[in-house]
C-alpha cells in the first residue's frame, strides 16, 4: 500500500501540500516541456526572419517611400545594415536577443524593448478585460443552461452562442460603434486613455473593444462548459451517488460537476490564447488602440524587422507559456495527476 507522506499532516495540510507539489513529478514534466519549447520559440523567430526577407520589399524602400531614388535607398540600406548577408543579420539579432537586447526599430529611434513596453500593456489589458467578461458571463450561463436542459435559458443561450460565434468581429465592432458610440454616446468609438490618466476613462475606452473580443469567446466557452456539465450529469457515477445521498440537484451541479469541468475549461482557454492574440490585431486596428497588434501591422508594412521579430518573440513565448501553464494548472486542479505515485 503506498503512503503519500510519512509526516502527519496538519488539519488543513498546507505545509505538506506545498512540499508535495515542489517535489512532484508534475513539476519535472513541466520543466522538461519548458526545455523542449525553447526550440519552438526559436524556430518561430527564424521562420519570421526568413519570410520577411524572402518577400519582396525592404525597410529602406518602405520607409523612404516610392519617390526615393535608388541611390537614396541604397544609402539608407547601408545605414540600416541591410546590405549584410542574411545569416549575419539574423545572427546579430539572435545574439542580441539572447542577451536581452532586442535591437532598435528601423523606422524610429526607439528601442524595440521600449516599444514593446509601451504597447504590450495595452493589449494585455484588452485580453484580460475580455477574459474576465467572458468568465463572468459564460460560467453562470452554462450552469443555468445545464440546470434545466431544453429550458428557456438553455435554448436562448444555445441560439445566442451560435450567433455570437458566427458573427465577424469587424461587423460586431461596427454594430457596437453605431449603437453605443454614435447613437447613444456611452462609449467612445476610437481612442485610448491610459490608466495613469484615470481608471474610469481607461475602462470606458476599453469596454467596446473588449466586448468585441469577448463575445465569440462567451459563445464558445458557454457551449463547451454546458456540454461538459451535461455529460457529467447524465453519465457519471459519482453524480448518481451524490443524488443518492440526498444532495440537491443544484449542489450536485455546482459542487461536483462544475469542479470537474474547470480543468477542461482552463485547457480550452489556454489553447485558445493564440487565436485570441490574432484577433486583437484586428480589433486594435478598428478601435485605434495603441497595442502591439496595431504596431505589428505597421511594422510589417515598414519591413521593420527588429520590431516584428520582437513582437513575434513575445507572441510565440506567450503561446508556449500558456500551454505550459495549462499543464501545470491541470496538476493543481486534478488530484489524480498531482499524486502520480498513486496506487496502480
Amino acid at each position: 500500500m503506498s503512503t503519500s507522506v510519512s509526516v502527519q499532516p496538519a488539519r488543513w495540510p498546507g505545509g505538506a501540500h506545498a512540499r508535495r507539489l515542489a517535489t512532484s513529478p508534475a513539476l519535472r514534466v513541466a520543466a522538461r516541456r519548458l526545455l523542449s519549447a525553447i526550440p519552438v520559440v526559436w524556430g518561430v523567430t527564424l521562420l519570421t526572419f526568413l519570410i520577411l526577407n524572402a518577400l519582396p520589399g525592404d525597410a529602406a524602400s518602405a520607409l523612404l517611400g516610392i519617390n526615393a531614388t535608388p541611390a537614396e535607398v541604397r544609402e539608407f540600406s547601408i545605414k540600416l545594415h541591410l546590405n549584410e548577408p542574411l545569416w549575419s543579420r539574423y545572427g546579430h539579432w539572435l545574439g542580441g536577443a539572447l542577451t536581452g537586447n532586442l535591437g532598435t526599430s528601423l523606422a524610429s529611434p526607439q528601442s524595440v524593448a521600449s516599444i514593446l513596453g509601451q504597447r504590450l500593456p495595452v493589449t494585455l489589458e484588452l485580453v484580460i478585460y475580455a477574459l474576465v467578461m467572458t468568465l463572468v458571463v459564460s460560467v453562470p450561463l452554462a450552469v443555468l443552461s445545464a440546470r434545466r436542459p431544453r429550458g428557456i435559458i438553455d435554448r436562448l443561450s444555445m441560439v445566442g452562442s451560435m450567433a455570437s460565434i458566427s458573427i465577424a468581429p469587424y461587423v460586431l465592432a461596427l454594430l457596437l460603434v453605431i449603437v453605443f458610440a454614435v447613437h447613444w454616446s456611452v462609449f467612445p468609438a476610437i481612442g485610448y486613455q491610459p490608466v495613469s490618466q484615470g481608471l474610469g476613462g481607461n475602462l470606458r475606452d476599453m469596454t467596446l473593444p473588449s466586448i468585441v473580443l469577448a463575445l465569440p469567446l462567451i459563445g464558445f466557452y458557454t457551449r463547451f462548459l454546458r456540454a461538459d456539465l451535461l455529460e457529467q450529469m447524465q453519465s457519471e457515477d459519482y453524480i448518481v451517488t451524490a443524488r443518492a445521498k440526498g444532495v440537491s440537484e443544484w449542489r450536485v451541479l455546482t459542487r461536483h460537476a462544475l469542479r470537474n469541468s474547470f480543468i477542461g475549461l482552463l485547457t480550452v482557454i489556454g489553447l485558445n490564447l493564440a487565436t485570441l492574440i490574432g484577433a486583437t490585431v484586428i480589433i486594435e486596428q478598428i478601435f485605434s488602440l495603441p497595442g502591439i497588434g496595431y504596431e505589428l501591422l505597421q511594422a510589417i508594412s515598414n519591413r521593420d524587422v527588429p520590431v516584428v521579430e520582437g513582437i513575434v518573440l513575445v507572441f510565440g513565448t506567450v503561446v508556449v507559456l500558456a500551454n505550459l501553464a495549462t499543464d501545470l494548472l491541470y496538476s493543481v486542479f486534478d488530484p489524480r495527476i498531482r499524486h502520480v505515485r498513486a496506487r496502480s
Partner: protein
Amino acid sequence: MSVPAADLIIGPLEPVTAEAAARPQARGWLRSAEIVIPGGILLVLLFFCFIWPLVYQVPKPVGGSLLTTNLPLWSPGHILGTDMVGDDVMSRILYGGRVSFEVAAAVQVIGLVIGGLIGMVAAYRGGWVEAVLMRVVDVFIAFPSLVLVLAIADSLGPSEMHVIWALSAFSIPAFARVARAATLRLRDQPFVVAARLAGTRTWRIMAGHLVPNMMPQLVTFGMLGAGITIILEGALDFLGYGIPPPTASWGNMIATGESFISVYPRYVIVPSIFLLVTVLCLNLLGDGLRSRWGVR
C-alpha cells in the same frame, strides 16, 4: 431489431442533448432538421453565387454608371439597390460570395489533404519522424500566421490566390493536429493492429482503415474551419490586405460601406447579413454533423 436489453437499461435512453445522442446511425439522415436546414440554405447560396449568374443575366458587379448610384432596395433591375459607385449590390454580393466560398473550400481542402497527411504520418510512424514533424507544426501554430498573411499580402499584392496561400498557413497545422490525435486513437485499435500483424502495407492501412475512420472528425472540423476562414478572409479584405476593390468581396464591401454608415447603413448591413448567415449555417452544419456522427 433485437437489442440486448441490458444495453438499453443502463443509463438514460432519452438523450437530453444532441451531443449526448452519440450513436452513429445512418438512419434518418434527411429527417434531422439541424443538418437539413443549414445545409439547404448553404446549397441555395452556392447555387445563387455560382450557377445563377451563368443562367440569368445579372448586372455586372463592377463598372457601374455614376448615373445610378445609391439606388435603394427593390429598385427595378437592382433588387438590393446600387452602391456608391453605381454597381449593383446584389451581383456584388453574389460574386463576393463566390470569393468567400472558393477561398474557404480551397483553404480547407488544402489543410485537410496536406495537414491531414502530415498528422497521420507523424502519429502512425511515431519516433523521430513524429517528433520532427510535430515540432514543425508547433512552430507554425505558435507562429502568428497573421504575420505571414499580412506579409504576403503586403508584399505580393493582394489577390485571391495569395489569400488562399496565406490562410492555408493556418489550416494545415490545425488539421495536422486533429489528424494526429485521431490517428493516435485509432492506431491501437484492434482492427488496425490486426491489419498490421497480417502484414498489410502501411499505405493500405492508412488508406483503407485510418482515413475512413478519421473522416468524420476531419470533415466536421473542416466545416467549422470553413466558417472561421470566411471570417478571416473577410477580415483581410476589411483591413485592405485581401481582395481589393473594385473586385467584389463581402469583406471589402463592408469596409467601403463603413464610411457611409450613418447615411446608407445598408452598405454594411447587407453583406454583413450574408456573412452571418453563411458562417452560421456552416457552424450549425458542422455541429449537427458532429453530433450525428458522434465526434467529440
